[in-house]
């Protein structure tokens, strides 16, 4: 009897314990919500209280340097506490951002990539038009996020550009001058020349086309041929009900050229093979990529990266020598906070892009191509970024429209259609027709 009673007591204790754990877990959850955050930072005597800034951003490559910058800012501004979360890969980031917003754990500063994402978070974005950074943003970088009434949703991270990145030494030996490859015919001829001396040049193929990475074809290459009909503007792309694909033939020629002279098999070739294995080790003459590959090239072979790579635009009739340059990401400030936190967030962003310490970081630590004025005298760290900056300074750029594609269009529809074409499973006409239809049905 006694024993029985004893065990019951123990059971009860266990049960109470389990409940306590559950309750504690729930309690924690609600404590971390946005309300909790606001009351923490918005005390009665605002300024002396610590302000907590939670930053969530989708460019994982510069996470370490970004944290260093934040540390420096915190040293100078002791009342600000910055906490950074970086999540890599476009879709994973957006998923997690949505999750954090829907669970109530909202970041105070977050990054958004294109018109789709901006529209979804529109209601939570503070007006940035009163920031100094918005004033200093280069022409063409901020119009896409400005409303008619002057309201600005977000400010640009940086500029990025892509084209054909070539191996200087190989082209020189083959007797090809990259400066003279501004039309498709010239490029084709050069490719054939290089291909005919493959063995002497010690390369395996002219190109490495990463067919497994549908964004290389569906976002970047397609952008070149869709940009003219969409006025080089992602917002126009975002509002377009349908696609005409006026330049589908030119697109086909360029894709065919890359596929024909590429390392095989194209469809299982991925980004890291393309950049690390084939290009940085000198196995191919050219790849279609952007200035973001520089840190990887540098890691593989600093000497090669510094002196042996160059970038040229993808030839396009009527748009010769124009490099596709765009803003991959924007910073937005959460407006669901009290004024002090919103202001602190804006101050931090202004400081990052416009103070001397910040600029130094942006250029030499982040390796960003700045999207702001006031960087004219600074030296850009690598040759590819320098090329991008030069083209944008001279206004010789082709706008990015792929950031305005319907969400998931490239990944689920367009990209696979192009892959199916390369795999011989669809004719070019079928692939284009299916992609047009997918666009229309996704825009409904």
């Amino acid at each position, binding site marked *: 009897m006694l024993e029985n009673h004893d065990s019951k007591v123990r059971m009860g204790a266990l049960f109470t314990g389990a409940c306590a754990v559950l309750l504690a877990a729930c309690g924690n959850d609600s404590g971390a919500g946005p309300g909790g955050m606001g009351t923490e930072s918005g005390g009665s005597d605002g300024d002396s209280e610590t302000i907590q800034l939670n930053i969530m951003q989708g460019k994982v490559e510069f996470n370490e340097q970004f944290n260093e910058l934040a540390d420096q800012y915190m040293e100078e501004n002791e009342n600000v506490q910055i906490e950074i979360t970086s999540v890599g890969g476009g879709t994973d980031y957006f998923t997690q951002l949505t999750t954090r917003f829907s669970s109530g754990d909202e970041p105070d500063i977050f990054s958004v990539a294109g018109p789709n994402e901006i529209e979804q978070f529109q209601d939570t974005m503070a007006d940035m038009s009163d920031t100094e950074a918005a004033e200093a943003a280069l022409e063409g970088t901020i119009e896409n996020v400005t409303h008619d009434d002057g309201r600005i949703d977000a400010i640009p991270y940086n500029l990025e550009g892509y084209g054909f990145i070539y191996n200087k030494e190989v082209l020189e030996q083959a007797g090809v001058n990259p400066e003279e490859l501004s039309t498709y015919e010239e490029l084709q001829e050069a490719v054939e020349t290089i291909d005919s001396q493959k063995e002497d040049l010690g390369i395996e193929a002219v190109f490495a086309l990463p067919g497994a990475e549908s964004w290389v074809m569906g976002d970047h290459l397609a952008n070149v041929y869709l940009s003219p009909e969409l006025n080089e503007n992602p917002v126009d792309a975002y509002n377009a009900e349908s696609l005409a694909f006026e330049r589908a033939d030119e697109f086909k020629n360029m894709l065919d050229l890359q596929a024909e002279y590429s390392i*095989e098999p194209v469809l299982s070739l991925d980004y890291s093979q393309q950049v690390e294995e084939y290009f940085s080790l000198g196995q191919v003459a050219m790849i279609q990529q952007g200035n973001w590959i520089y840190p990887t090239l540098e890691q593989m072979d600093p000497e090669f990266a510094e002196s042996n790579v160059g970038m040229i635009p993808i030839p396009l009739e009527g748009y010769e020598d124009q490099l596709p340059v765009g803003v991959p990401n924007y910073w937005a400030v959460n407006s669901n906070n009290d004024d002090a936190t919103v202001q602190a967030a804006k101050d931090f962003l202004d400081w990052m892009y416009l103070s001397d310490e910040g600029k130094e970081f942006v250029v030499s630590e982040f390796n960003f191509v700045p999207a702001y004025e006031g960087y004219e005298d600074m030296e850009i760290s690598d040759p590819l970024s320098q090329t991008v900056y030069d083209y944008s300074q001279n206004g010789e750029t082709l706008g990015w429209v792929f950031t305005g594609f319907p969400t*998931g269009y490239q990944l*689920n529809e367009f990209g696979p*259609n192009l892959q199916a074409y390369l795999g011989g499973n669809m004719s070019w006409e079928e692939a284009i027709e299916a992609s047009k239809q997918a666009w229309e049905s996704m825009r409904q």
Partner: protein
Amino acid sequence: MKNKEFTFWLFITPVLLSLTLVVILPVVMGLFYSFTNWNGLNFTSFVGFNHYKRLLGDGQFLRSLWFTVKFSIASIILLNVIGLSLALLVTSKLKSRNILRTVFFMPNLIGGLILGFIWQFIFIRVFASIGELIGVESLQVWLATPGTGFWGLVILTVWQMAGYIMIIYIAYLQGVPKELLESAEIDGATPFQKFRHVIFPLIAPAFTVTMFLTLSNSFKIYDQNLSLTGGGPYNSTQMVAMNIVDTAFSGNQMAYGQSKAIIFFLIVAVISLSQVYYNKKREVDL
């Protein structure tokens, strides 16, 4: 009586509570959201059965479903055949049987994502090198065609799970009474007859278990799919789980993805439960 009820609820409450929180509630909410235009944050209107109607005309979803069915059939058969063979091997009088058990089970301890990347390396690089050496072209295009993508996934899954299935078979094989085997031997049964007519019927309960495990597992595979082929080439190796994730997260159509998930849940539930029901009927009792 009252006391008994108290202890009953005392024991059952934590389980019920957590089951409600992490399973029942999400399913009910998911079902609800599938009838709205929910975007992950909020919803503005009810759309009735529109998402479900749209599903029927969604070519990629139906292809993914069919691919998943084909994949499941191939991997269920191979998993059970290989799992049982391995189990017979390591319950025989081999000297190395203990170490073999460990070796066969080992792949199951590695996470699916990592396995996917390892096998990707094997299929793309190692296979290509071997193919180049011996001049077989078909070895050089692994994972670049739908067919090789399919078999790549099957091989990966079988390699990973066969050890686990083996363990289950071992447990049942060891439960087969020695007397029965002995008397069969005395009656002059050949090893095959012994297996077919004595062992096989007695380990039927194992089939119920392994079929259930392999079936539900093959249907729900995601991480191996993601890391090995990523659905490529041209989404031909995209399984249902991946199609749902892509729809919901990269396509940002949360409610539509949710309705796919509900349909998927129903399919898996119906197939698994009817399979268990029929297999149970076939089992023999000693």
